[in-house]
C-alpha cells in the first residue's frame, strides 16, 4: 500500500486528494468511482482534521491500495486522536424538509452510502478506519 503521513488539518486536503487521485488514476479507476472515493476521502479527512486532536493538531496516515478478485480500492486512515467510531453515529433523516434539516452528519452518511464497505477498529491507541470501493 502507498502511504502518506501528514498533519490532520484541512489545509492539507489538496495534498491528500492528489495522493489518492494519483493512485486511482494509475489503476485506471472509472471516473464515477473516483469521484465517490474522492468524496469519501474528503469527508473522512475533514472529520479527522476537525475532531481527532481538537483543539490541537496531530498526524494522520492515509494508505491506499488496489486489490483484485473483486478489483477494489482500499483506503485506510489512521490517527492517534480521541477514540471515535464514525460508524456508531445514527444516520441523519434524509427525508426531512429543508427547514427541518440539520447539516451535520451528512458527510459520514454519504460515505456509508457510496462505499462498498467501511470498518473501524481502535488498536494501539489508534483509530483505524478502512474504506473499500469496488472498481
Amino acid at each position, binding site marked *: 500500500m502507498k502511504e502518506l503521513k501528514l498533519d490532520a488539518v484541512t489545509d492539507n*486536503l489538496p495534498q491528500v486528494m492528489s495522493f489518492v487521485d494519483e493512485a486511482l488514476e494509475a489503476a485506471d479507476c472509472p471516473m464515477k468511482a473516483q469521484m*465517490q472515493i474522492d468524496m469519501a476521502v474528503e469527508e473522512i479527512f475533514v472529520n479527522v482534521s476537525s475532531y481527532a486532536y481538537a483543539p490541537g493538531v496531530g498526524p494522520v496516515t492515509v494508505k491506499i491500495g488496489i486489490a483484485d478478485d473483486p478489483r477494489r480500492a482500499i483506503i485506510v486512515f489512521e490517527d492517534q486522536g480521541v477514540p471515535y467510531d464514525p460508524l456508531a453515529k445514527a444516520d441523519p433523516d434524509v427525508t426531512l424538509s*429543508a427547514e427541518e*434539516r440539520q447539516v451535520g452528519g*451528512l458527510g459520514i452518511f454519504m460515505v456509508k452510502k457510496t462505499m462498498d464497505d467501511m470498518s473501524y477498529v481502535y488498536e494501539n491507541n489508534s483509530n483505524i478506519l478502512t474504506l473499500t470501493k469496488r472498481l
Partner: protein
Amino acid sequence: MNIGRERNGNELTLTVEGRLDTNTAPQLQAELEKEYNSTEKLILDFKDLAYISSAGLRVLLLAHKTMSQKGGLKVRNVGDIVGEVFSVTGFADVLDIQ
C-alpha cells in the same frame, strides 16, 4: 472552482465549474452572501460541476433556505455524478432541480 455570473434584474444565475469541496465551498458562500440582498430569484447552473462534497451541500442548503423566503432557488443541468450525491442524501427531493 470557477464561478460565472449573469444578472438579469433581480434574477441571478451562477454557473459553478469544477469542484465544490471543503476548500472551494467558502468561495461560493461568500459570492452568495454578496448577492442575496439584490437577488429575488437564484439559479445555480451545474453543467460544469464535476464534484460536490458535504461542504458544498451545506452551502446549497443554506442558499435554499435563504431563497425560500424570496423567489426561490433553482438548480439546473445536474450531471450524473453530482445527481447521485443529491439522490443519496435526499437533496434531490429538497432542491428544485430542473
